[in-house]
Structures are given as C-alpha cells and as structure tokens.
C-alpha cells in the first residue's frame, strides 16, 4: 500500500522553540486519519508542513510521494482546509467557486455547485456574511471540488457548534467514502475523531507519541488495576503509557503485544478517548521518561 504521508526525523523550529521534532511517521493511503493532541502540540505545524505551507527545519517529509507544495501538480493532489476556514470576505460564494475553477485544473464544477445548492448556500451571498458552519462547508467544498487524492483539514470543526460540527464531519465522511480519498484532520476533541477516524496519530509536546489504526490501537492497549506497585515490576513486553497511584492501588495504561494473563491484575479494555488521554497526560509523560531511564 502506498503512503499518503511519510516523514523522517521531521522537525520545525520557530526561533529557538521546536514546534515539532523528531517526527517519523508513515501513514498508509485510504484512511481517515485523526491527528490529536492538546493545543500547541504541533498539529498545525505538521499539517502545514504536509501542505507545503512551511518548510521543515530538519528531516524530510513527502506527501503522496512528492515534496509538499513544490509544483502545481503536487498542489493539485492535496486539498487543504485551514484552521478557522478562511474565505475572502468580499467575494461571493459563487466567486469562490469561480476562484476554484480558475486555479485548479482538476476542478469539478458540477459537484461544487450541486454541493453548495444542497447545503442551502446562496451563490450571490458574500462569504464574509456566512456563519462559521457555512464558511467551513464552503471551504470544504473548495477542498473537495479540487478533486485531491489527499484532503488535509486543520481543526475544521473547532469553531462550530455541536450540531454544525456533527453535520460537517458527516459530510466529510460521506465525501471521503464516495471519492475514495485519504483524509488527515486534526482536532483536540477526541470525540470528533472517534466518530470519523480509522487511523490515529497522537501528538504531545511537539512529538508523535503513537500512530496506528484505531482498531489496532484498541486491541493493544489495556488498563491494569491492582495493588500498588512500581511500573518497573510489571511483566516484560509491556510499555507503560500512564500510571496513577492511590495509597493502595495502581492503575496503569499499558501497551502490549499479547493479551494479559496475570491474576494479580484486573485487566480491562480501554476506550479511544481514554487511550488518547493517557498519552496526553503530562504527569505521565514525565513519569514515562523516568521509567525509560530505569529500564535503559
């Protein structure tokens, strides 16, 4: 299977601060990929690097086998819906479609018009007067009608109310299935991604914590609850994602290849949200470092 996004030791520095570092990742084609992480984790940076809006400071990135943003052909293959879904306030909806038609060789005008009509957007309205949800739908239409192989969306639903968000993601999913395109979208809301994504990348503190198919992730992560003990004394072959201790009890989220059969522990399945939260938890991030040092 081909890759939509491949990065080797990718890094981006703003001044002296790394927004993204040592990012090595290989996302296969045909997925709806969720990029999740707290605000400021580097999600936008990674997506902008993939869209060719930014140049990497270190390492390399290739999208659909090409250097992002380098040529018109490469730009034509990748759709990008930016954060806050910007549109030209003084241009009408119809003029935005015209812009798309003028600037994209693979433009699907009939589909764009049909979509706008179905959404109830008035072509003669100025884009500056649209609601947040309508604006997001307009930029999604621009992104889809370009007929890209990969559509990147940076927090597309962040500014929308729950209903509009649901509708937006629904449309996105339908369109992706219909046109067999790969999608990468970022969000800090796991619940959004849980509904639409079948592949997940967790980004915390400008580093990729884990990446993989959601079903695979769910199958390899467990919550262990038992009497208090050190993470170092867990069975071999397990990677501690997070650890919480009360006076008597320890709760670990671990990643393990094989199912657990230890009578000392209560083993339970974990939801995607809890899995992501475990990776996002800062205290555990520190703890994990200590653990790794002990093990190393």
């Amino acid at each position, binding site marked *: 299977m081909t890759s939509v996004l491949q990065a080797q030791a990718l890094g981006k520095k703003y001044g002296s601060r790394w927004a993204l570092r040592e990012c090595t990742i290989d996302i296969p084609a045909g997925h709806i990929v969720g990029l999740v992480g707290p605000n400021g984790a580097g999600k936008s940076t990674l997506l*902008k690097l993939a*869209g060719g*809006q*930014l*140049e990497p400071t270190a390492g390399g990135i290739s999208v659909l086998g090409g250097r992002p*943003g380098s*040529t*018109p*052909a490469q*730009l*034509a293959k*990748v*759709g*990008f819906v*930016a*954060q*806050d879904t*910007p*549109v*030209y*306030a*003084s*241009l009408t909806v119809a*003029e935005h479609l*015209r*812009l*798309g038609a*003028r*600037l*994209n*060789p*693979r433009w699907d005008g009939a589909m764009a018009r049909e979509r706008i009509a179905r959404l109830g957007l008035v072509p003669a309205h100025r884009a500056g007067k649209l609601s947040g949800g309508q604006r997001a739908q307009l*930029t999604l239409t*621009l992104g889809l009608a*370009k007929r890209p192989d990969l559509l990147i969306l940076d927090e597309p639903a962040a500014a929308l109310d729950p209903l509009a968000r649901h509708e937006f993601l629904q449309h996105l999913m339908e369109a992706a299935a219909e046109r067999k395109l790969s999608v990468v979208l970022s969000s800090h809301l796991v619940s959004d991604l849980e509904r639409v994504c079948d592949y997940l990348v967790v980004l915390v503190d400008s580093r990729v914590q884990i990446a993989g198919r959601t079903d695979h992730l769910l199958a390899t992560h467990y919550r262990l609850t038992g009497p208090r003990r050190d993470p170092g004394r867990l069975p071999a072959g397990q990677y501690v994602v997070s650890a919480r201790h009360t006076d008597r009890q320890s709760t670990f989220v671990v990643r393990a290849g094989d199912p657990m059969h230890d009578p000392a522990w209560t083993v339970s399945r974990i939801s995607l949200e809890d899995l992501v939260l475990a990776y996002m938890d800062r205290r555990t991030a520190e703890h994990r470092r200590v653990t790794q040092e002990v093990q190393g």
Partner: protein
Amino acid sequence: MIWLTWRQFRGSAAMTAAVLLVLGIALAVTGPGLASRYAAGIADCTPNDTCTDFFDRFFGEYQIPFLALTLVVLILPALAGLFWGAPLVTRELEAGTHLLVWNQSITRARWLAVKLGLIGLVAMASAGVCALAVTWWSDPLDKSAVPEMARMAPVVFGARGITPMGYAVFAFVLGVTLGVLVRRTLPAMAVTLVAFAAIQLAMPLLVRPYLMPPVTSTFELGRTNVEGMVPQDRQGGAMQVFLSTSAVPGHAGAWVLSSDLVDPSGRVVGGDRASGPSSTIARSVPVSTTSGPCAPRAGLGTDACTAEINRLGYRQQATYQPLERFWTFQGIETGTYALLTLALTWLCFRRIRTGLS
C-alpha cells in the same frame, strides 16, 4: 489567477481611474488656455524686452495650481506603495486567506508574479499618465518658473517626464516587500511611508547631483546672478553683493549645485554678515562706495557698479547641471529605480517561497 487579481483589485483600480479621469479633464480644459496666454505674453514682451517681468507675473499667478499638481505627482507613487503594495500580502496573512489561495493548484511564485506584474503595471501606467499630463500642462509655467522651481530643480524634476513611473513601480514593490517582511498591514504601511520618503529625499540630495559629473564654470556678474547690493558700512570700503545660489547667466533652468564669489586670484570671497533675499549669499567686495561707479551718490545704478566689480576681476564660480541634461537624467534615474525594483522583486520571491506560513 489574473481573474482573481483583477477581482480583488478592481475597486482600487476603478477609484484611481476616476480620480485620474477628473484630473485629466481638468487639465485638458485649462491647458490650452494657459498655453495661449503664455504665447500671447511672449509675443507682447519680446519687442520691448520685458519678458523677465512677464515670467514673474505669469508664474506668480499660477503658482498655486503649479505646486499642487507637482505635489500630486510626487505623492501618487507613495500612495501606490502604501495602499496597493503594503497590504498586498499582509491582508492575506491577516485574514488567513493566504492558506486558502496558496493551497489551490498554483505555486506562490506564480501567484506573486501575477499580482506584482498586473498591479505594478497599473501603478506604473497611472503614475505615467498623471505625470505626462502634468508635464504637458505645466510646460508654459516650467518655461517661466523662477530658478528654484525650474524643471531641473529637485522638487519639480521628480514630478515631470518618466521618473514618476519608476517611482510608482518601485514604491509598490517596496510596499509589497516590506509587507512580506513585517507581515502586518498597518506597521508595513508606516514603514513603507518612512522608507519611501527617506529614499525620495536621499535621491535628489545625495545621488542625483552626481548622476553625471557636474559642470564647473565662472561667470561675469549680471542681472541673472546678482540679486542686489548695498554698501557694507559707512566707511565706504566695501560693497555687499547678494549672489544668487540658484541661477547662472546663459544657462536658464540649470540646476545650480553650488555658487560662490571668487576674487581675481580665484580665492573664494568671504563675508556673510548681512542677510539678503532668499536663495542668495552675501559677499563683500572691496570697492569704494564713496566715489566711483559704486557710490550711491554717483547715481549710476546697480548695473554700473556690477560692471565695475566685473572689471576688478570678481566672478561667480558655480557648479551646475545644465537643463539640456533633463532627459538624460530622467532616463538614468528611472533606470536606477527600475534596478532597485528588480532587486526588491527578487527579495520578495525569495521570502514568499520559504519564509511565510
């Protein structure tokens, strides 16, 4: 891309066109009248040799529109830099729309090339049309202007001929470049204004005088270069001569860079105590003011005294750029701005390819 550029720019373009049209009509209506008044005046004054007086009257009468039009042509390029150049990229960055347009199937270089090309051409054409119309209208006034307002004079030179086109396209690209560097509209506009004003001041003060080696020559004193003279004190040993710093005899309209009085041995004459008319320097010449042609009591007038000072060997020594070099200078200066524009364009393309997100 041309469609999008035009769609985003058409409002400004229409407004500019309207303003230029009104200006053009006003000039077209009043221009012929001005030219015929000038022709009639010349026909009147030539027989009795009073053209200097006619020039003074004629220029004095139209001084205000003359200065206003000159100012318009000087300001126009700055407006192109401020309102077309600086916001070109910053407006997109501030609205986030650069992320929309730079993710269509078109490279940023192409986007910038069309924007710079199209709007740069409009800026150049507007300034060119405006400057040529004003040059045509002002022709009779340019011919009768006082030396400080002649066509080669720093203020007027930049508002005539083809240089405004160079200024306009330069100011536009300067605005775009500073916008790309500063990234915010208002600061970019402020920096553009300051930078462009500084360059427009530096050019006539520091660069233009030396575009070609100036001519240095000595001239006899006469009505053109002596604005008046008074006895220096009661003792009667010297005459205070007010020497023009902006005119030399026989080269009407020349841009005088320096002018001073030298004695027969070629040394510069001192003396600057008295204050005379503007654009003059006061120089004291040792000549008797109690007897001879320079004595007020002799009643021979200034011309006799001037002749006496000339006889004694005093001369005006001046460095100047003659009016014949007007079009050469226009060409060199426009070319200089074109080169600067190219350099800025290159910088712009470099920055926009790598430096913006």
